[in-house]
């Protein structure tokens, strides 16, 4: 049942806040809202409130994200995209050459084979020589017999030294060096002094 008093409808249930909000949110127009001045006023008040909140919330966020900041953000996103699309090259170390010709591989194989053969031959020779030396029982005495005694070697060297000295003393003297020779002590004098 509904009456109209001074232009206002009475006796009809008004829209709830939720219904007003849905009408505002979804753009639906309730038949009652079209006719009820009270609900229209409430709807308008709600709209103003929500508009104000929206404007302030947007202003608050826009104050933080200024145009400069957004430009920097855009540039940053693009840089990161570039890095995704063109990732940095990873250089492996040590790097193996790719596409080595087969002939090179064969040559390298021969070099390795020759080196191994050389090593084996060297080892075998070493072992054989060692075994041969160990098979000579008189090896040690022989070497002792062959070696001259240290006394003999010393006497030989002393004799040679003295003979050299005599040769030097008896050698013809150079007249120009005679004065110098007179000034310096002779080897023979020094040696006799030392013996005494």
């Amino acid at each position, binding site marked *: 049942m509904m009456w109209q008093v001074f232009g206002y409808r009475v006796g009809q249930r008004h829209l709830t806040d939720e219904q007003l909000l849905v009408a505002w949110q979804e753009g639906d127009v309730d038949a009652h809202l079209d006719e009820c001045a009270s609900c229209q006023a409430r709807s308008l008040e709600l709209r103003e409130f*929500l508009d104000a909140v929206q404007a302030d919330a947007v202003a*608050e966020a826009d104050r933080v994200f200024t145009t400069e900041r957004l430009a920097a953000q855009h540039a940053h996103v693009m840089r990161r*995209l570039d890095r*995704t*699309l063109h990732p940095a090259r990873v250089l492996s170390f040590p790097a193996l050459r790719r596409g080595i010709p087969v002939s090179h591989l064969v040559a390298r194989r021969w070099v390795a084979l020759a080196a191994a053969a050389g090593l084996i031959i060297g080892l075998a020779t070493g072992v054989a020589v060692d075994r041969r030396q160990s098979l000579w029982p008189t090896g040690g005495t022989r070497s002792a017999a062959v070696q001259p005694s240290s006394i003999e070697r010393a006497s030989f060297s002393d004799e040679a030294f003295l003979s050299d000295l005599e040769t030097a003393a008896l050698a013809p003297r150079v007249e120009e060096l005679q004065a110098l020779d007179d000034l310096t002590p002779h080897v023979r004098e020094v040696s006799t002094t030392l013996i005494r």
Partner: protein
Amino acid sequence: MSRVGHPAPVPAIGREADACTTAAIKALAEAGRHDEAREQFAELVLRHQRRASRIALHYMRDAAEADEAVQDAFLRAFRHFGGFRDDLPFEVWFTRILINGCLDRIKARGRRERWFPPRPHVDFGSPDPIEAAAGTGRTPEEALLGRERCRLIASALRQLPERQRVVFLLSQVEGYSSREVGALTGLNESTVRVHLFRAVRKLRRLLGDVAGRQD
């Protein structure tokens, strides 16, 4: 009374342009022309970064983290462009990626704060009211009052429960329909409406006549 409309609806022209751009990106990516796809994607970034930054800021409440979340979301969107279906507008698909990223970051922040003391709340900066008013046609007093009102509204929004706040922001601030908010948040349409109504009721109680007051 004039017919009421959806608050700040997402322009259809923008969505049509998005549809063209996304189709071009998909085709270029499938043809292996990634550099050209990147160039097209740069346009999408330009078109959506402001809105994305706003949403991320409301989630993260920290400008630097919001910035990083937006960048990550764009990169993820580019990488997974093959998974984009045409039945949803690009911005809904992208916003979902962004929101998921923000939620992950919030979780990670919670874990971090369990071990390390949280950073002191960083205000977004309070510029001098005279400087803020310059070039806006407002007096410094009006600018100051406007800032104070912004602060009160931001504070009231922070007092809303997480879901109500998100639904309110997506619906009333960003202008998504209930169906789109449902697609973004994973809630069904009627739940979105319930959250939205509760958020509005609480905000009205908290703000009184602050929001409706003109500068």
